[in-house]
């Protein structure tokens, strides 16, 4: 076990010294945090949801000729009522007001309002303020509920009929927020899985390219070398995903209230426990394939070409994410969450947006970990001395013989 740990540690240290690993592990989250903070800062406020935050320092005047409006009330910090256009015009000219509005006598019929300011600004932030003031004045006193509905017409809770036609499942939280979260999580999971397993493959091939394999095999059994490398690259991947998730948490901590939709995310903690299981299963399955491919490859050029065989099915749930979001219990979505190569992403996507029956999760995990066992068994058959010391890629018949006979 000590030797396995020595190999793992060496893999971990080798990764830690690799610029590409450092950049991906620490550079990407740092860059992401920096970009989000910069954007937040650029937006120029701590409370972007406050529609009046961008108002100029000077107040806004208004002249009510319709007789419908009272005093500024709750808007007194921003608005000043004037009795005549001349007075309002004088104060605007002197710079005491940023602008003023005139509500004509036939306002109720025409809906027309005049805005007077030193310069024309079609997207002026004071318009939102003034529209809100008008709504409050016109409806707020008599129909506060109607006002609330006009300001927030629909908070949608989506429900979906189960395939049985009886069970009604709610699509939890804000679907846009969940879509973003699922997409982000799937992306992080996929990138770290691919990076770790590709590094494992590179590491095995590098042993051969550096002509170290025979020296190492005089100290270790091939299975110890395989276990050490799988563990080491797994730890490197874990450090990576934890750093990324830590970065996301830090980002939420720093700017959570400011990021639209973050507050709308509703995911149960059990989902994260299941996600860990799927990540572990996914990594071990990819690692088994990568180690096997590394064992039969003789240089770094050809190894990644073979890896397409398992990487393409693995990204299918990402490619069909919108379909899965639309119908998380469709035949395709269920199939992708059962097929071992696509299950880690497929099931996580479904779990994030719908209630998946327990038996489906259990069955999917059994299939996944059963495949992990079979994959590691096959990888161990390829990870033998004769293959590792061979300077040639085995032919298809040789490969079949190795897999069948061991």
């Amino acid at each position, binding site marked *: 076990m000590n030797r396995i740990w020595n190999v793992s540690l060496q893999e971990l*240290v080798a990764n830690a010294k690799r610029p590409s690993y450092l950049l991906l592990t620490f550079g990407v989250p740092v860059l992401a945090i920096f970009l989000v903070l910069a954007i937040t800062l650029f937006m120029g406020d701590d409370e972007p949801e406050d529609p009046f935050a961008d108002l100029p320092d000077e107040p806004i005047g208004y002249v009510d000729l319709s007789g419908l409006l009272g005093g500024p009330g709750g808007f007194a910090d921003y608005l000043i009522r004037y009795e005549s256009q001349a007075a309002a015009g004088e104060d605007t000219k002197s710079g005491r007001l940023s602008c003023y509005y005139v509500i004509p006598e036939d306002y109720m019929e025409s809906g027309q309002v005049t805005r007077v300011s030193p310069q024309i600004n079609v997207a002026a932030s004071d318009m939102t303020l003034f529209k809100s003031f008008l709504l409050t004045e016109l409806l707020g006193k008599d129909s506060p509920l109607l006002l609330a509905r006009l300001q927030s017409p629909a908070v949608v809770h989506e429900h979906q009929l189960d395939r049985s036609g009886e069970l009604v499942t709610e699509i939890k939280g804000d679907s846009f927020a969940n879509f973003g979260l699922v997409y982000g999580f799937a992306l992080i999971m996929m990138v770290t899985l691919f990076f770790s397993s590709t590094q494992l493959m590179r590491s095995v091939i590098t042993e051969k390219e550096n002509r170290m394999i*025979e020296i190492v095999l005089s*100290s270790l059994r091939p299975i110890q070398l395989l276990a050490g490398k799988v563990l080491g690259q797994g730890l490197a991947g874990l450090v990576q995903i934890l750093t990324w998730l830590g970065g996301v948490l830090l980002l939420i901590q720093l700017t959570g209230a400011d990021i639209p939709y973050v507050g709308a995310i509703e995911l149960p903690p059990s989902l994260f426990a299941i996600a860990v299981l799927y990540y572990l299963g996914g990594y071990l399955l990819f690692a088994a394939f990568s180690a096997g491919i590394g064992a039969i490859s003789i240089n770094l050029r050809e190894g990644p070409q073979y890896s397409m065989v398992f990487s393409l099915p693995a990204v299918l749930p990402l490619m069909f994410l919108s379909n899965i979001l639309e119908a998380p219990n469709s035949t395709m979505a269920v199939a992708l969450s059962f097929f071992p190569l696509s299950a880690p992403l497929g099931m996580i996507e479904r779990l994030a947006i719908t209630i998946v029956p327990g038996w489906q999760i259990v069955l999917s995990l059994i299939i996944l970990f059963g495949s992990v066992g079979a994959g590691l068994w096959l990888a161990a058959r390829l990870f033998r001395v004769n293959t590792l010391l061979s300077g040639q890629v085995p032919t298809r018949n040789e490969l079949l013989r190795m897999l069948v006979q061991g």
Partner: protein
Amino acid sequence: MNSLAVSSVSKSFGATRAVDDLSFEVRTGEIFAMLGPNGAGKTTTIRMALDILRPDSGRIEILGGPISQQIKDRIGYLPEERGLYRNITVLDCLAYLGTLKGMTSRDAKARAIELLARVGLDDAMNKKVSTLSRGMQQKAQFAATVLHNPDLVIIDEPFSGLDPVNTLLIKEMMYEIRDKGQTVIMSTHMMHQVEEMADRMLMVSEGSKVLYGRVEDVRRQYASHAVYVSGEGDWASLPGVERVEHDREKRADLVCLAEGNSTDDFLRAAAMHPDIHLSRFEVALPSLEDIFIEVAGAPQSNAGTGRKANGA
């Protein structure tokens, strides 16, 4: 006491019999040479001894017993196909290999620093392996092999690609290992190195033992019943002389003796002859290279006829 005992070991790869009923022993504290043409089974035998490959039949005991992790930790192995991790520093590379032999990282680093200084690489220990010249890498590889102070060192082609200065350095270190009572097994094609360094040897051909024993004994066994002489007189006139050839390289005459005449008989006759003045007399021993060509170059059935050295 033996460092390695190989008994009736055979190994096949498919239809090819790489090692065929091979038996030999390597004694503790000696430099033992394994010779043989390419594909003779030397590397397969070494790999079986190290448990990298498993024999089909036969028994191998190494450092007093069947191989185990503890015994592996007492062996240093430098194969013919050798390298170092190119993208890490020399010191880190050696330290890692030391930990695979059971050393702590700290001990491995301390010992690596000592050894790298010994082979003249103290300035390069913190450089990446990829920046080292081939000769420097070979010295670092040798340092990695003996880093854990192994009781048995097995080196395939120890001097391959080394310049004369580095050859001398590695040779000295191999002698030091032997002088400390540890054992060195070297597999090589460089016959003159075997003649110079090895105490005993094994020559294999087509997986079988063809020569085995003390190097001097093997050479004597293949002596061509002739002597090198220098001096004055007509060597052909002496009794028992079959023919005389001049060897320009040796700067002497090679006197081949007829069957039934010994070199002692020739020396006695030459000493007693009034017209013969002998200034040099040397029994003509063949070089290992000649023996190698004779044995390995000939078909297996002829090579061993009447001359197989099966005793130690």
